[in-house]
C-alpha cells in the first residue's frame, strides 16, 4: 500500500480525516 504522505493531496486528506476523528473523540469522550 502506498504511503499517503508521499503525495501532497494524500497528506491534506489524511489531515482532514484526522481532524474529523479527533473531533468525534473529543465531543463524545472528553466532554
Amino acid at each position, binding site marked *: 500500500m502506498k504511503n499517503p*504522505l508521499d503525495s501532497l493531496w494524500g*497528506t491534506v486528506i489524511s489531515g482532514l480525516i*484526522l481532524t474529523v476523528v479527533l473531533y468525534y473523540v473529543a465531543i463524545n469522550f472528553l466532554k
Partner: protein
Amino acid sequence: MELHLPAIFRWIHFMAGVMWIGLLYYFNFVQVAALKDAMADGTNAGITKHVAPRALFFFRWAALVTWLAGAALLGARFVPAFTLQSGNALIGIGAWLGTIMLLNVWGLIWPNQKKILGMKPASDEEKVTARRVAFLASRTNTMLSIPMLFFMAIGGVHVF
C-alpha cells in the same frame, strides 16, 4: 491603557506560529517539488546552499517560540489542557498536536536536514535515510497541522 500579558503571549504565539507553519507549508507545497525539478537541471545548489539553511533556521526557532508562547498563554490551564480535563480538552488536543510537531522539528527534521545539507558529516547511504526520515517527519507535521489549527481555532471559543 493597560496591556495584558496574555494578549502579548497570544500575539507572539500568532506571529511565531505564522512563521513556523508558513515555512512548513513552503517546504511541503513549494520546495520539495522545486528541488526535484532543480536536481533534474542541476540548479539545486541554489536552494540547498542558500535558501534551505535560512528557511530551516527561522523554521526551527519559530517552532520553539510558538510552543513557549503557547505554554505561557495557557498559564494555569497548562496542566488541565495537557491532561485533557473538562473545559480544556479541545485546546489540549491542539496543544498535544503542537507539541508532537515541535518534537518532530527538533528531534527528526533538523538533525536529518543537517546531514542532508552537509552541516554534519554523513555517508551517501546515511543521507538517503536522512532524506526519507526528514521528508516523512515534515509531511507528518503538515498532516498534523490541519487538526492542530482546527483545535487551536475552536479551543479558544468552545469550552468543553
